């Protein structure tokens, strides 16, 4: 019933002709007090406290006809027709859910098969927000409802607010509703990923806590790819599904990736996030900022070449590899991707390459020799980074004059200065 009352106020309604009174559709001051009379009558009827319609007509109407104030109805579309208050109309016969179902029309032919326009989405609004049972247009104070029941131990009687007070109360209510509307309309700016409209590089926050209470607060997830994939079904035909590739990492060497599929995008994000945390790997890093040695591998048709760089170099790589390295905690590296750039294969290749690194200690143990580092900035000083845990062998590593490692044509071209590229030496923001 309360919903019906509000509906009367907001929506334009046909005025019903009543015996003995002149009703008009134009904006006239006389309609307002009658409308409010109707509303108050409705409330009185709903509360069931006072007598029915007919007898009460004259007295409130004559007193209220002297009222000249106008209701401000800025936001309602019925401003031209005036604020109409009908105690009983079409809108009072149905529940709010049924009414909104009709308005929004979510399940229609247009909504299926992706035919709905993105801009024509209507949002449901709770019209009873802020409503207090007992508050009405005539401003009666009902003890127990909108006024305190007892005052100094004495039960209060029914009172009425003055005109000014009631105006003020109604103006406050209108202001509050406008503020709510404004807050609803504010478009929240989505965090920008690798570029404006793409989901790549966008962060999803930490994964959800596990069933045994484990939290993953220090893990961050980043989306790598969002793709709409379709499947033909018998009944509906093309059925859309969203497939999301996501990587998680804590910046300290633990990282993993996973693929999640669902009909809705947010569900797919959630599924991928929680699946990725179940497939973590620990990746060894040299001095917590770079890889141990250069890696070049081919994963399916994706060729990846990763080079070790000194501190302060930054991540000069494909944007997906930059995201993955940030999650792992690698801060300085160069990577070149050639061949296929399929995101899933790229990620798999990167993780495979990084997991198959040989640490200095492993190399020392394998060869039974000291691993000695020579830095340009330190001159001829030898720095022993790893010594074999077992025995140290006496015979040195055989070294040919011409080393028999396979040369990479791209590397040779760049060392010989045969590469001409407008992008060489371009300065970007530090990563």
């Amino acid at each position, binding site marked *: 019933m309360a919903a019906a009352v509000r509906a009367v106020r907001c929506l334009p309604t046909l005025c019903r002709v009543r015996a003995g009174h002149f009703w008009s559709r134009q904006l006239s001051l006389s309609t307002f007090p009658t409308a409010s009379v109707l509303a108050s009558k409705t409330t009185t009827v709903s509360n069931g406290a006072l007598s029915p319609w007919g007898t009460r007509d004259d007295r409130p109407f004559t007193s209220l006809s002297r009222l000249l104030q106008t209701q401000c109805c800025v936001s309602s579309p019925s401003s031209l027709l005036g604020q109409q208050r009908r105690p009983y109309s079409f809108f009072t016969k149905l529940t709010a859910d049924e009414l909104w179902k009709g308005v929004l029309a979510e399940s229609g032919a247009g909504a299926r098969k992706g035919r709905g326009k993105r801009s024509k989405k209507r949002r449901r609004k709770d019209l009873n927000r802020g409503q207090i049972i007992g508050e009405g247009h005539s401003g009666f104070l009902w003890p127990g409802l909108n006024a305190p029941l007892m005052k100094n131990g004495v039960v209060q009687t029914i009172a009425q607010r003055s005109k000014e007070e009631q105006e003020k109360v109604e103006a406050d209510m209108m202001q509050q509703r406008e503020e709510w509307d404004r807050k609803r309309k504010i478009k929240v700016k989505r965090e920008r990923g690798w570029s404006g409209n793409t989901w790549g590089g966008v962060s999803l926050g930490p994964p959800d806590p596990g069933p045994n209470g484990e939290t993953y607060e220090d893990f961050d997830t980043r989306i790598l790819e969002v793709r709409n994939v379709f499947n033909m079904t018998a009944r509906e035909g093309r059925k859309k599904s969203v497939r999301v590739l996501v990587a998680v990492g804590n910046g300290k060497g633990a990282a993993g990736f996973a693929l999640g599929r669902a009909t809705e995008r947010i569900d797919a994000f959630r599924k991928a996030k929680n699946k990725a945390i179940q497939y973590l790997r620990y990746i060894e890093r040299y001095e917590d900022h770079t890889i141990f*040695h250069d890696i070049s591998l081919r994963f399916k048709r994706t060729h990846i070449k990763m*080079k070790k760089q*000194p*501190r302060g170099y930054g991540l000069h790589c494909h944007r997906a590899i930059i995201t993955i390295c940030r999650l792992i905690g690698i801060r300085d590296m160069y990577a070149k991707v050639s061949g296929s750039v399929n995101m899933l294969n790229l990620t798999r290749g990167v993780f495979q390459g990084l997991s198959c690194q040989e640490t200095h200690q492993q190399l020392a143990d394998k060869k039974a*020799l000291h691993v*000695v*580092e020579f830095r340009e900035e330190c001159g001829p000083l030898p720095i022993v980074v790893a010594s074999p845990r077992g025995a140290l062998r006496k015979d*040195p590593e055989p070294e040919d004059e011409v080393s028999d490692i396979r040369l990479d044509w791209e590397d040779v071209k760049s060392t010989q200065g045969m590469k001409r590229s407008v992008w060489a030496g371009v300065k970007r923001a530090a990563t």
Partner: protein
Amino acid sequence: MAAFRTPVSLWKFLIGSRGLEPVCIRTQNQLQPDALFQPLPLPFVVGLPRRGLSSDVESGTSKIKKPTFTDEEVQNILIKMTGLNLEKIFKPAIQELKPPTYKLMTQAQLEEATRKAVQAAKVRLKMPPVLEERAPINDVLAEDTILEGTETAKYVFTDISRSIPHRERFIVVREPSGTLRKASWEERDRMIQIYFPKEGRRVLPPIIFKEENLKTMYSQDRHADVLNLCIAQFEPDSPEYIKVHHQTYEDIDKHGKYDLLRSTRHFGGMAWYFVNKKKIDGLLIDQIQRDLIDDATSLVQLYHMLHPDGPSAQEAREQAAEGIHLIKVFAKTEAQRGAYIELTLQTYQEAFISHSAAS
């Protein structure tokens, strides 16, 4: 020996032009104030050939001769005291970084590499020369008053032939008043830097050598950087060079930051300065506190070499003191903070005993 020939030719030039007596030959190690083109040693040639020459000339005076910075024994002591901390000597230089290279080595290869590094370190630790302040040049070649009023600016004429050593270059100045005079040392340095620029040297001294900037550098513990910049900018015998060095040493002594210069090429100069000024207390205490007793004893020996007539030297000779006893003798006789030195020695000895008892 090429290094040998130049001083000889210089002397011939001097004797020929000025008719000087061989007085200048005898006192060649200590620079004569009124000799103009002093036969200075070329900066990084060790004084070996000259010493041989002087010992030929003065046969009976070597006992009273005061040991100089370039003497072999002095150099050995100073090199030993400087130490050889490879990590500090080969500290990462601020330059564009490249990824490091890795080698697999046996123990023998590693030792060989370390040996090569030590050799390179020794080259880096070559001490810059310690010379006395140069005398100002006040030599007028001609007074042509007829030229007075013709020019408004001074003219500097420099001989820019490439084959002459800088010290022998002719640089003369014609003043507006008409006098033709030899250029002063500062003018000489400026002109030579303009025509033959040396890397790291500016024509006008950089503002880092101003008092307040030096103080800032000292407060940031960058004494080694200050001294390196000073060596790059000034000549070893210029007054600014000597002033900056002395100021740096005084600041180090005041705050006891001796370790900043250890394993650098400036340590020898610093120790030499302190020994000459008889202010070796702070350095001694620092060495004892860092358990460098050998260095402390060699420092006291150096002190006795330089001041053989002092009470501590005589006392040491009487007692024929060795090692820690030598330091104790010095602490008792000539040290300003003798009590503190003895206290530190005592603490060291106790620590040493307890450590040896434990192990």
